[in-house]
């Protein structure tokens, strides 16, 4: 559309204002701010609690720009790259963008490029890219692995990174940083705009996104009111202390669902989602077809049906996991129920924000505790949310495994020159602190397979040509690299299908391995009977009622945030009613403001009687003996990750005083050390059990003892290309180069202990799994405060949930042979003695001998 008269009309944004007006919409101030900033050549970050208007804020600027340059009849070559963390979101975003383009009557094309993109579409894009491309960090990385990437992207004006808060805390964020660094180098005038939900460290988020360059934070809409409350059951006294109540709160939840037009019920793990969905259906059979289930292991079709149902207001309730945390706002949703702990204020608010989108409505989230102490947690979360204490997301620092992956990606494409590439990589915040040694190691790793001192002539990956350029010469190696680009490590998944081929989703291989034909289980909201497994697919048919099992998935679990933990310690102290703690004019009675505290009154009284309810500035330790042995319980309230680290650290230190084996358990509230023999704590505490001296060395020692580094190495092995996941659709890859990461770890630990990847494994366990800085701070606090030791005759209400919890680790300072002498071998009783068939007595017979 030629507009010769455009220059006379006004700024390019005029066309946008007119479009809005024609539809009866009003542009938000923050949208106008982003459009102007973009047109003035600026980059920035939009910080907004809700989804409203963010897409159009970022998308419309480039459209106006093109119109301002004269426009035209033809779709321009690629100008906008839109990076999004989830494929599902990509489709929705592309749709919104498409609608805007059509509304403005512009010839722009919008395309999608993710793992789901069909080969026909890929071929089309190979010929010509659309004007705007919605893609994931991995797919963008894949694009950069082609030699023609620079030419294809030469007209790029804008990179948008959606849900940047989500990417920021993970290696995918660093991958995004590296990709943007490449794009910026090709095109120094490239603008970058991020879209972020509520975040505590928004300044740092801006910095990371723009690699320290200039940019602005634009605050989005924030006038939505949020209501946060908790479901407190009538019959408080029967509340269990531990475990997941399962469905004890079912009735209050059903009542809450009844009260709203549409409700989102969030659970923390997929198995809970399945359990709750079944529970709702059994209690209200008439809700069949009116309620939905949504989580990451369900087939995409199933999820889309649920999303459409929510959008159109056909569903009364949807039980979901974090799979519905991001994405389009569903306006019919009036209320959010959070089953169990939300773990943090940001998450609680983000989930609250999934409701109340109809005009004039407030967001409303109701916590549904699943065991007693979660009531205190819910109260604490509300207190901190109202005080605006939002958590930060810690970005990843210097992930060397990702660096090597990126270098091979670039080498597979146009290749790189050493000094140039080093500058480019170090321009990102993630690698600002990269040392010369680390850079050299990375180059050696991809070219020689190790450090400069060892030469492996048979190793081939990236080669340095005579012209000094690093490239991948062998197409097979480039192909295998492209297949494995990514940072997500998952266990082998088995498809679940009906006999007619209809796919329900996937479950972990370990779950299927434990089923026999005829066993029933619940999945995708259905009762299913397992028939057989063939080629990574489990075939099922409708099952008959019985006692079905629910699958478990090994997913990441968020620990309790410091902000909420702090709130809990405050509330507990206030509850004790210690006169000295009540501020002048203040009251001892918390109940009116915190009905949750009334719910746990009896439990706290018992805790106080048997042991103590800890004050904020003291460390409570309990010792007790059961049939299982001698327990020591600590209650730092620092979140499960820190507790995992602290339990390993203390067990390691105790194990140095005498040979002992420990079973460690931990929750968000505390941890325990269980051993066969009793330890006299007072002298050990005086002797520096909680000391911060030698903390790093002791922590690293305990990591090895508890095999934590070995497990973290799994992700690193995958990202650095040591383990190959296999081609999609083909369950087995070249058996001769298959090894588990555990075995690889052993090889490295033994013969190349200085390898930076091992160091990275240690660093990652420390920083990411154990939240080392938080652990250090927590330890210091414990050491500096009075320690109260209580000998209890049985496990207290605080101890009980830790003891029966599911997460246990081991640590030992005993000689392996000594432990073995106390252990037993389980025989295969079913087989007749002496010479029956051999194969059925091996676990995983298909895998044979080649796996650890």
């Amino acid at each position, binding site marked *: 559309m030629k507009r010769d008269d455009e220059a006379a009309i006004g700024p390019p944004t005029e066309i946008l204002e007119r479009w809005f007006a024609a539809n009866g919409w009003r542009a938000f101030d923050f949208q106008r701010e982003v459009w102007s900033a973009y047109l003035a050549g600026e980059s920035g970050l939009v910080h907004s609690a809700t989804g409203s208007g963010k897409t159009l804020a970022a998308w419309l600027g480039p459209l106006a720009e093109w119109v301002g340059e004269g426009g035209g009849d033809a779709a321009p070559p690629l100008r906008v790259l839109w990076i999004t963390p989830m494929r599902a979101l990509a489709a929705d975003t592309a749709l919104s963008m498409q609608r805007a383009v059509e509304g403005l009557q512009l010839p722009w094309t919008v395309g999608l490029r993710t793992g789901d993109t069909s080969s026909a579409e890929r071929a089309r894009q190979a010929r010509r890219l659309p004007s705007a491309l919605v893609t994931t960090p991995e797919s963008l990385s894949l694009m950069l692995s082609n030699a023609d990437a620079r030419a294809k992207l030469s007209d790029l004006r804008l990179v948008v990174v959606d849900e940047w808060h989500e990417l920021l805390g993970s290696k995918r964020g660093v991958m995004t940083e590296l990709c943007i660094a490449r794009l910026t180098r090709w095109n120094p005038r490239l603008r970058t705009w991020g879209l972020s939900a509520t975040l505590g460290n928004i300044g740092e988020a801006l910095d990371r996104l723009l690699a320290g360059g200039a940019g602005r934070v634009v605050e989005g809409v924030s006038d939505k009111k949020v209501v946060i409350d908790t479901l407190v059951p009538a019959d408080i006294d029967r509340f269990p202390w531990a475990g997941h109540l399962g469905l004890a709160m079912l009735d209050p939840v059903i009542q809450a669902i009844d009260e709203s037009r549409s409700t989102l019920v969030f659970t923390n793990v997929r198995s809970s989602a399945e359990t709750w969905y079944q529970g709702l259906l059994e209690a209200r059979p008439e809700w069949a077809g009116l309620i939905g289930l949504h989580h990451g292991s369900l087939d995409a079709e199933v999820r889309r049906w649920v999303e459409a149902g929510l959008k159109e207001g056909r569903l009364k309730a949807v039980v979901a996991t974090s799979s519905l945390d991001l994405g389009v706002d569903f306006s019919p949703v009036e209320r959010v129920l959070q089953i169990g702990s939300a773990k943090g204020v940001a998450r609680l608010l983000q989930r609250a924000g999934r409701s109340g989108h109809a005009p004039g409505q407030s967001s409303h989230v109701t916590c549904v505790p699943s065991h007693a102490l979660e009531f205190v947690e819910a109260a604490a979360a509300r207190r901190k949310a109202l005080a605006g204490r939002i958590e930060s997301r810690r970005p990843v620092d210097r992930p060397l495994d990702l660096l090597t992956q990126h270098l091979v990606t670039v080498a597979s494409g146009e290749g790189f020159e050493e000094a140039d590439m080093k500058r480019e990589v170090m321009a990102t915040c993630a690698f600002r602190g990269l040392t010369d040694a680390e850079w050299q190691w990375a180059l050696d*790793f991809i070219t*020689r*397979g*190790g450090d400069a001192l*060892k030469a*492996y*002539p*048979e*190793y*081939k*990956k990236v080669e340095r040509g005579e012209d000094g350029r690093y490239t991948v010469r062998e197409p097979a190696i480039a192909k*295998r690299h492209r297949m494995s680009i990514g940072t997500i490590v998952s266990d082998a998944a088995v498809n679940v299908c009906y006999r007619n081929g209809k796919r329900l989703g996937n479950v972990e291989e370990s779950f299927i391995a434990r089923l026999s034909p005829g066993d029933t289980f619940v999945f995708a909201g259905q009762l299913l009977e397992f028939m057989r497994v063939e080629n990574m697919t489990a075939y099922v048919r409708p099952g008959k009622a019985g006692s079905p099992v629910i699958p478990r998935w090994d997913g990441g679990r968020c620990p309790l945030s410091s902000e909420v933990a702090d709130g809990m310690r405050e509330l507990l102290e206030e509850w004790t009613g210690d006169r000295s703690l009540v501020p002048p004019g203040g009251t001892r009675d918390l109940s009116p403001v915190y009905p949750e505290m009334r719910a746990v009154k009896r439990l706290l009284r018992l805790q106080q009687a048997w042991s103590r309810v800890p004050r904020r500035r003291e460390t409570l330790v309990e010792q007790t003996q059961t049939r*299982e*042995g001698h327990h020591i319980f600590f209650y730092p309230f620092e979140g499960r990750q820190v507790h995992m680290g602290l339990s390993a650290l203390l067990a390691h230190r105790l194990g140095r005083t005498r040979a002992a*084996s420990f*079973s460690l358990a931990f929750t968000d509230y505390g941890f325990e050390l269980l051993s*066969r023999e009793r330890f006299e704590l007072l002298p050990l505490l005086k002797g520096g059990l909680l000391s911060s001296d030698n903390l790093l060395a002791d922590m690293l020692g305990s990591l090895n003892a508890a095999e934590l580094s070995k497990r973290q190495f799994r992700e690193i092995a995958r990202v650095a*290309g040591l383990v*190959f996941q296999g081609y999609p659709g083909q369950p087995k890859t*070249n058996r*001769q*180069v298959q*090894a*588990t990461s555990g*075995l690889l770890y052993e*090889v*490295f630990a*033994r*013969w*190349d202990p200085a390898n930076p990847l091992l160091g990275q494994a240690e660093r990652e366990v420390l920083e990411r799994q154990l939240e080392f800085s938080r652990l250090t701070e927590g330890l210091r606090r414990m050491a500096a405060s009075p320690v109260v030791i209580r000998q209890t005759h049985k496990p207290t209400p605080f101890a009980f949930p830790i003891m029966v919890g599911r997460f*246990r680790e*081991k640590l030992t300072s005993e000689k*392996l*042979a000594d*432990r*073995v*002498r*106390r*252990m*037993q*071998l*389980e*025989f*295969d009783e079913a*087989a*007749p*003695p*002496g*010479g*029956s068939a*051999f194969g059925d007595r*091996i*676990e*995983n017979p298909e*895998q*044979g*001998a*080649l*796996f*650890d």
Partner: protein
Amino acid sequence: MIDAVECVVAGERLQLLSERAVFWPAGRALFIADYHLGKAASFRKAGIPLPSGTTTENVERLERIVARTRADRIVFLGDFLHSAAGRAPRTLARFGEWREKRRALDITLVRGNHDKRAGDPPVEWKLGVTDAGGRLGPFVLNHEPGAARGGGYALAGHIHPAVRLHGEGESSVRLPCFWFGARYGVLPAFGAFTGTAVVRPKRGDQVFVIADDEVLRVA
């Protein structure tokens, strides 16, 4: 530091070495399964960077047990060579050097599934290469486990056996093992860079685990 435990199998005294091999005193023979020479090299060839050290360690361990037991012969029960890609010059040279020093040893290789694909070892090494089913005293020499037709006690490898032991609480440990049934036995994998598969023995089987540098009987 090094340990051996004795057991009786098919009427013969056997010494089980913590270096993951079996010594038969009466025949002055060492039985070794799943050496997997060149496994790390084949990974490197495929672009997976692994440190060197496994080949040297294997050879050093081999030399140790030959020296200690004063064996006259070695029988490799299959999977001696890992793959064709693993036949890297340096890897082969290291074993070749050791073989030259110990050229008086009578060494037999019973071909296993990996050997069939990797090809026979270099002729200069003078290893007697044969298929499964040969006999040495009362023993039938195989790669894959199973009772031998025609009697005798079969010795094999192939599966890299390990057992899971359970202790109090929930602790459990998985260890490579020697597993002797009524009619055949399975040796642990000798190679330094090999995984294991957990097996479940029956009552009546003899099972010995290797816990670091000790061999312990668990059944």
